[in-house]
């Protein structure tokens, strides 16, 4: 178990400042011609109509979406790592996101088009992914092996990827529409995305709050948890349900964005140690930080065009994944 470097209030306040700065950066920076100064003027009530439009209608909405998705993925990452006791667990790597996006692809293929329908479908898909995770971790002997879980996720994802390609062969018409569901993006999402995904986020967080205490007890061993009056199996189920709701919401809102759920708990653990009661709150601030940073990078890298944010997070996340396995003897959490 890692020792805490910072107290929780310290870490929270530092992260909150970071988040605030990144939000401002996200409002001021973009791929367009409206630079920092005009944006700042617009933000402070300037009258340039183009600048006001870009700052308030485009960047504002996008920042809100990044906050929501980052929060959901950060929290989901911490929960998933706690319940699998595996520092490599990540919704993207374990195939939970792949389950969600494949479910949406399938639904589109079968003719569904309403965006709000995508939310339910994505949650169902990520639930299937979570059930797989549960199956693997409850398998005797297999659950202790961090790598096997990741491999199972990789196998699941690649299988779903192949099935998606197969669907595209049947139906070329939707091929273009489906390309979105392969790499996530925050740009250009319909405006009502926030409205329908907010309840999903709140539901998932509520669920998460319910399981925090039992999860922390479970980290001390099943016996201790039972002794404290918690039901281990119920706790695991509840946690995975929370993860499914959070990841499903995030995926329906912005497509599959990998590695956030790995980067965030990694940083959180280094800051405040590995107790979930300490990391969960912090990760809800760290998640939006990481995603906003990746999003700002994605806007600036190939100006005047943009990159899908999922590509940027993969480029940041893969090295961190390598760092995790290089620096640790992979302690079970």
């Amino acid at each position, binding site marked *: 178990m890692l020792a805490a470097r910072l107290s929780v209030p310290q870490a929270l306040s530092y992260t909150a400042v970071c988040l605030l700065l990144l939000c401002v950066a996200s409002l001021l920076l973009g791929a*367009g011609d409206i630079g920092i100064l005009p944006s700042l003027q617009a933000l402070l009530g300037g009258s340039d109509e183009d600048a006001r439009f870009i700052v308030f209608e485009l960047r504002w909405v996008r920042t809100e979406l990044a906050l929501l998705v980052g929060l959901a993925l950060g929290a989901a990452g911490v929960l998933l790592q706690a319940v699998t006791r595996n520092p490599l667990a990540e919704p993207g790597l374990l195939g939970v996101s792949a389950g969600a996006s494949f479910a949406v692809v399938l639904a589109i293929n079968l003719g569904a088009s309403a965006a709000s329908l995508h939310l339910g479908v994505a949650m169902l898909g990520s639930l299937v992914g979570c059930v797989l995770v549960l199956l693997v971790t409850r398998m005797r002997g297999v659950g202790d092996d961090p790598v096997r879980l990741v491999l199972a996720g990789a196998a699941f994802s690649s299988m779903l990827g192949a099935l998606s390609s197969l669907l595209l062969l049947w*139906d*070329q*018409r939707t*091929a273009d529409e489906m390309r*979105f569901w392969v790499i996530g993006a925050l*740009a*250009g999402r319909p405006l009502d995305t926030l409205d329908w995904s907010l309840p999903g986020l709140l539901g998932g967080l509520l669920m998460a709050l319910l399981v925090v205490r039992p999860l922390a007890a479970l980290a001390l061993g099943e016996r201790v948890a039972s002794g404290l009056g918690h039901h281990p199996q119920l706790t695991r189920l509840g946690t995975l349900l929370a993860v499914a709701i959070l990841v499903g919401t995030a995926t329906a809102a912005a497509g599959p964005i990998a590695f956030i759920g790995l980067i965030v708990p990694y940083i959180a653990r280094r800051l405040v140690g590995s107790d979930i009661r300490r990391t969960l709150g912090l990760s809800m601030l760290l998640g939006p930080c990481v995603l906003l940073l990746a999003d700002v990078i994605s806007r600036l890298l190939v100006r*005047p*065009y943009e990159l899908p944010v999922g590509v940027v997070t993969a480029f940041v996340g893969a090295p961190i994944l390598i760092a995790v396995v290089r620096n640790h003897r992979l302690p079970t959490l």
Partner: protein
Amino acid sequence: MSIRSHLQRTAAAITTSLLLALPLHASERTLDSAYGPVKISGTAQRVVALGDSALDAALSLGIQPVGTLASRGGDDVPDYLKTTAGKITLVGSVREPNLEAILRLQPDLVLASSDLSRDLYAKLSLMAPTVVPTGNSFQDWRKTYLTYAQALGKQEEGQQRLAEIDKRSAELRHRLPQGQAVSVVRWNPQGPVIMSSHLFVGQLLNDLGLRANELAAAQAQKPHSDVLSLENLSRINADWIFLATLNPDGRKALEDARKQPAFTRLSAVVDGHVVTVDGQIWSSSSGYLAAQQVLDDVEKALLD
């Protein structure tokens, strides 16, 4: 026709294509293609058209190909060619032509698109003379069209068809308001891209005296721009915007686009100058039939 004579004819076709050096037929002609000169004799009876442009050319010259590919963005012949093409065998998709299905049709001429890979060409050219037009989609579309016409032994008819288009454009040009800026935009789920104005449709619009939008004119290397940031969406603005997806149904694209405030505040949108068009024509195909459709679309939009 018996199977036996089929076989004999195909064997003969194979032999002629292998022994290019021997002059066999009076109406023999040599075409310059992307992979070297191709010799063709007589009038082809069983044409396989790999690609929408090849199919368009063949049909416009009164030749019914025996096989073709499913167009990109669809799983069939492009909508605008469906009635003319009638019943036609599909021999794979644009991504992967099925060689055995092509062989089964026993073609005596294969019209391919200019981006056919060398490996596929190597196989196809053993089955029948295979014509891969030189150049790419940025050159004058008439050149590609005439290459196909020449391969089909219908060079004169091809010239006539092109003259028809030129005549119609010249007429239309007189009636259209001059100096109007236009842009052709494909609204993908990942975001909007602007089509280069140097392609088939851009060339037609230019002939009509319509001015290409600046960003479209700048796309001299790639068929279309990268996905545009919504912050830069004003760069697709023009007096008229032609909006398409890869699919024939442009209305769905417009529905999606209208969900973005960055789109609805463009002056062309405010003025109601957005025209939804068939993407299979406007962003994938080229040829005589496609050109007539494009001119129809422009005439209807700008004059009615």
